[in-house]
């Protein structure tokens, strides 16, 4: 017999995110930008603005990389002759 356990935050995984895993790139990029800008900014006047810009840059770069890989795998590689 299987016992069903109640969901406990930080112990159980959030399985609902399984289909939306790619959106997790946004908080990941945000966390990296928060730390990087905290280290590199001499002043903190436009700190959060810089963090948001860097987050956008990381996400845009990842999307661009994904597009390049999709084009290479779906279009360019099938064009290579087999023999």
């Amino acid at each position: 017999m299987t016992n069903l356990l109640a969901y406990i935050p930080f112990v159980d995984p959030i399985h609902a995110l399984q289909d939306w895993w790619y959106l997790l790139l946004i908080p990941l990029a945000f966390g990296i930008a928060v730390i990087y800008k905290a280290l590199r900014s001499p002043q903190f006047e436009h700190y959060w603005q810089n963090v948001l810009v860097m987050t956008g840059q990381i996400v845009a770069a990842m999307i661009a990389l994904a597009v390049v890989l999709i084009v290479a795998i779906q279009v360019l590689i099938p064009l290579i002759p087999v023999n």
Partner: protein
Amino acid sequence: MSPSVKSDSRFTPFAALLAWIWPGLGHLRLGQRRRGMLIMFGVLFLFLGGVLIGGVDVVDRRHDPLWFVAQALCGPIAFGTDLANQRLLSDPQVRLQRKSLSHINEFGTLFVALAGLMNLVVILDALHRPAPRRNTDRRARAEP
């Protein structure tokens, strides 16, 4: 004047040790309160975010030793989470139900590992960052 005062950066191993013990503590020790608090927020955001997404299973010294090398750079919280993992998921039936799978496990593990790697950069920065001087902020503001 001593050489340590002349040079731009000082060697501060105690601050680096504090930065490993708790993220951001090294910069707080160096008198950089805001920087330290932002670092603390950033590293804990990634660490707790990873554990929230993938559960306690994402920090696992036994089954993911290479990932744990990066995660251990977060400090004692990574070892504490691993200990919680070993205790909470020791029962095979409980482990089966609470184990994270596929993308959730990958992203949770990546969040915590990146928190550790970013904290390594923080530790190295705390090791060589100069303590703030009184006139630094005024001089910086005066510059265009």
